């Protein structure tokens, strides 16, 4: 594949040399130290405070965005209830505190959000938070499955590519994987979704293209699980494929770098079998950047879900965001945005903690 040539052609034929500036020593050579639990607790607390601050900032941003939205909130609310009486608008204005100074309004708004009052969707006739929480499980299911799909397949393909990089016979495999990743990297995911629908649903009729389960089938137990699983396949591939391409590149580059390091040469020299070298020495060290990245990715999946859920009619918060867009339901739109941001913050925090547990070399202090 010609698309792979810039990458495969750019690197030299011999094994990459370890650069003296590498910022980490191999995990194998370091005795695992017991992480002081105080330091861990302090670390988690600091992350927690930072995460809460980020979410509060999003709330403040939301407050200003809703004021930027077209139309005065009071007249919109009056319009929603079918009245344009100026007295009524004025009454709403006082009722919702829109006549008070801006800082007071902001404080009221932030306090409301903190107390789980996320506004009311006049289109859906339900509180925003309830709407979002109803849809959240579907999105979490989709995100989880897309995450597992992208990580496992990405690492698998990345390892294969790096293993075949310097083998004369199977080098085409490396070029194929790298080229495929490059193509996938440039593909708009909503378009890929449509292509998959045309191929797997319209032409072959293998997989359902819409919704989360067969409407009106009344399935229960395992047959329902199976039904949801078949509905999950296309959205999972659609949402996960871009990130899978990223994992392929990341794993491959990281593997190739670690493979050239001295401790790997030592392991080979003392006669460890090649598969064991890869598994025990190379992969373990090469996966660290992948762990870091996976935390970032898990959060970004929440944003990408808007496109996937829209195309596949998946009843999650991404689809809810699209509906809110179509109906100009700004309260709901910003509610979904807030929850998505909160999810990113939580996932980032979890990754940070996991990363430090996985890799004891990283100090708990500072570490920006």
């Amino acid at each position, binding site marked *: 594949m*010609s*698309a*792979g*040539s*810039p*990458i495969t*052609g*750019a*690197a*030299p034929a011999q*094994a*990459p*040399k370890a*650069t003296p500036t590498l910022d980490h020593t191999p995990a194998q050579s370091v005795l695992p130290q017991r992480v002081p639990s105080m330091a861990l607790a302090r670390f988690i607390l600091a992350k927690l405070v930072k995460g809460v601050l*980020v979410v509060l900032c999003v709330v403040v941003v939301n407050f200003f*965005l*809703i004021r*930027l939205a*077209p139309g005065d909130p009071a007249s919109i609310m009056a319009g929603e209830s079918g009245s344009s009486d100026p007295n009524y608008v004025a009454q709403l204005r006082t009722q919702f505190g829109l006549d008070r100074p801006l800082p007071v309004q902001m404080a009221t708004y932030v306090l409301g959000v903190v107390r789980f009052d996320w506004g009311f969707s006049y289109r859906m006739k339900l509180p925003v938070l309830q709407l979002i929480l109803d849809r959240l499980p579907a999105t979490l299911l989709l995100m989880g499955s897309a995450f597992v799909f992208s990580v496992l397949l990405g690492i698998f393909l990345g390892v294969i590519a790096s293993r075949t*990089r310097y083998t004369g016979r199977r080098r085409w495999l490396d070029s194929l994987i*790298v080229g495929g990743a*490059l*193509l996938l*990297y*440039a*593909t*708009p*995911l*909503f*378009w890929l979704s*449509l*292509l998959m*629908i*045309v191929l797997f649903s*319209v032409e072959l009729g293998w997989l359902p293209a819409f919704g989360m389960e067969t409407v009106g089938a009344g399935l229960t137990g395992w047959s329902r699980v199976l039904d949801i699983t078949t509905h999950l396949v296309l959205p999972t591939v659609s949402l996960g494929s871009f990130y899978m391409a990223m994992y392929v*590149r990341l794993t491959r*580059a990281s593997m*190739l*770098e670690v493979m050239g390091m001295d401790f790997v040469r030592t392991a080979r020299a003392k006669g460890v079998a090649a598969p064991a070298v890869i598994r025990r020495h190379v992969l373990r060290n090469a996966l660290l950047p992948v762990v870091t990245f996976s935390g970032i990715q898990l959060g*970004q999946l*929440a*944003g*990408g879900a*808007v*496109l996937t859920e829209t*195309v596949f009619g998946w009843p999650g918060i991404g689809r809810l*965001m*699209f509906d809110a*867009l*179509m109906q*100009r339901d700004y309260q709901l*739109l*910003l509610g*979904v*945005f807030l929850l*998505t*941001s909160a999810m*990113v*913050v939580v996932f*980032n925090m979890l990754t940070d903690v996991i990363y430090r547990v996985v890799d004891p070399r990283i100090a708990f202090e500072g570490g920006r």
Partner: protein
Amino acid sequence: MSGFARRFLRNTGAVAGLMILAAILVVALAAPLLFPDSPWMMVADPLILPFQDGQYPFGTDMLGRDIGAGLAYGARVSLMIGAVSTAVAVLAGIAIGAAAGYHGGWVDDLLMRVTEFFQTIPQLAMAVVLVAILTPSIGSIVAAIAIVSWPPVARLVRGEFLTLREREFVQAAVVIGQHPGRIMLTQILPNAMSPIIITASLMVATAILTESALSFLGLGDRNMMSWGFMIGASRTMLREAPWMSLMPGVAILLTVLAINLIGEGLNDALNPQLRHRGED
């Protein structure tokens, strides 16, 4: 410079990318000559298949609009938005990163907290919300894409400034009393340009993808034909006329692929010492 050009041209992928991008650019510039009618105009029978009618080689959509014209005018929008939003994001990123890296201290702390904040919140969701609230237009789309894409540039520039600030030639400039602004612009920035150029080239590709996603969701500028809009509009006809969504998607794919290839070529050519690390 000649060394750079030679290294870049030796990279077949980068050259291929350059050629694809040049072709798309020519079509975009020549769109009014190739297709004098507006891409929104109904010019022929609806749903002409591609490669059937010599006059409409790309076929027509469900309203009889020429898909070829849509592709050509869509190229203008995609390239323009990609370039302008990246330019805005890079300028903002340089300003913020330079201020943080050069001054250090509390300025650095504050600016980096802001940068981290923008890097944390989900980019696509933020762009969707911004365009929806500011009402869809070329201006709001460019602004939204720029707002979600400047943080990596700021971090990069800050890092470069932090290390370059300590170098002798910068110290010398400080000693002879050059104004800090002048030091940043004429001493430090030129030495930090390579990574900025590489990042910027890849940002154009991301910006084009984001724009297509926005217009697919119905958040495009209503006055401008765009590839994402064409795919979004053809969704309902997916069964009957899959070519309608196929072609604009291929256009996006080719453009983004070409820019990514160029970006990687630039990376290899500007960082020759990195090429031997087996990295891509």
